[in-house]
């Protein structure tokens, strides 16, 4: 993990066409963006695409990054989310579970958790996108509420409320699912 100053320096180098600096940032952010994209869309393949497209945008438009306006991580998550929303607006219909359905041949450790993972994935997909993003960014990606507010373009209180509502709704859904399954 880099400090803000190191990140700013690397982004500046990327803007000058420095592939090594880009490789370092990409190695750090590709897995994080893929995890966020996968959980946001419910589809690993789309998570992968979102992560790659986001980093491609970093490569092409690094000069637009302003370190005074926030951290690189919040800038990248915002790009990833905007791309996801653009794709949704363009008529993507998320099939949601198809990627997990096709993982029956996975190794045992993953198979063991598949049922639980599927339940959580389904419950997350039922949340409104803003609630889902707020929860994913704060819980899985470890962003502070201030950083989540920057990504979503909302105030701090709105984010606090979104996260609380998301947690409540998700908890309720999962409790019900759990009670229904033997």
């Amino acid at each position, binding site marked *: 993990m880099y400090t803000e100053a190191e990140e700013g320096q690397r982004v500046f180098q990327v803007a000058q066409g420095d592939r090594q600096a880009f490789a370092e940032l990409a190695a750090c952010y590709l897995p994080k963006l893929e995890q966020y994209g996968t959980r946001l869309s419910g589809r690993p393949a789309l998570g992968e695409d979102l992560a790659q497209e986001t980093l*491609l945008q970093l490569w092409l438009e690094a000069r637009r990054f302003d370190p005074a306006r926030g951290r690189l991580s919040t800038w990248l998550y915002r790009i990833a989310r905007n791309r996801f929303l653009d794709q949704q607006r363009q008529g993507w219909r998320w099939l949601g579970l198809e990627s997990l359905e096709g993982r029956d041949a996975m190794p045992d450790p993953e198979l063991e958790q598949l049922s*639980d993972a599927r*339940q959580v994935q389904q419950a997350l997909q039922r949340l409104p996108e803003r609630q889902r993003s707020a929860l994913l960014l704060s819980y899985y990606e470890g962003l502070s509420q201030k950083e989540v507010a920057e990504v979503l373009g909302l105030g701090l209180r709105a984010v*606090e409320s979104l996260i609380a509502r998301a*947690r409540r709704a998700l*908890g309720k859904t999962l409790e019900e699912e759990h009670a229904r399954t033997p």
Partner: protein
Amino acid sequence: MQEPHETPEARERLEAWLDRYAVTPRANLEGLLSNLPPQEAPARARPRGGRVASSARWGAFIDLWRPAALAALPVLLGFVLSSALPTENSDSWEASEQWVFAAGGEGYYP
């Protein structure tokens, strides 16, 4: 509106569920790095580049004219002052023909 408080037990249960949804990253970093397109800064900046070139031209133009304008300033100032100040044969500005005429000095001319 006050959000209902999440109990520690509910929080613990929820987080235990969330932790079960692991995502294994599969994206190919090498593939991404080997397929980077050229940054094409000049192409993307072409509309703005026009303005940049234009402002550069104006900059050069102004740079050329600035010393010339500075050199011409005393001459211009002298011309303005010589035409505005009273001419010879007058004791003061107020007593000059121009001043009286401008002030509507009727009867000045016989």
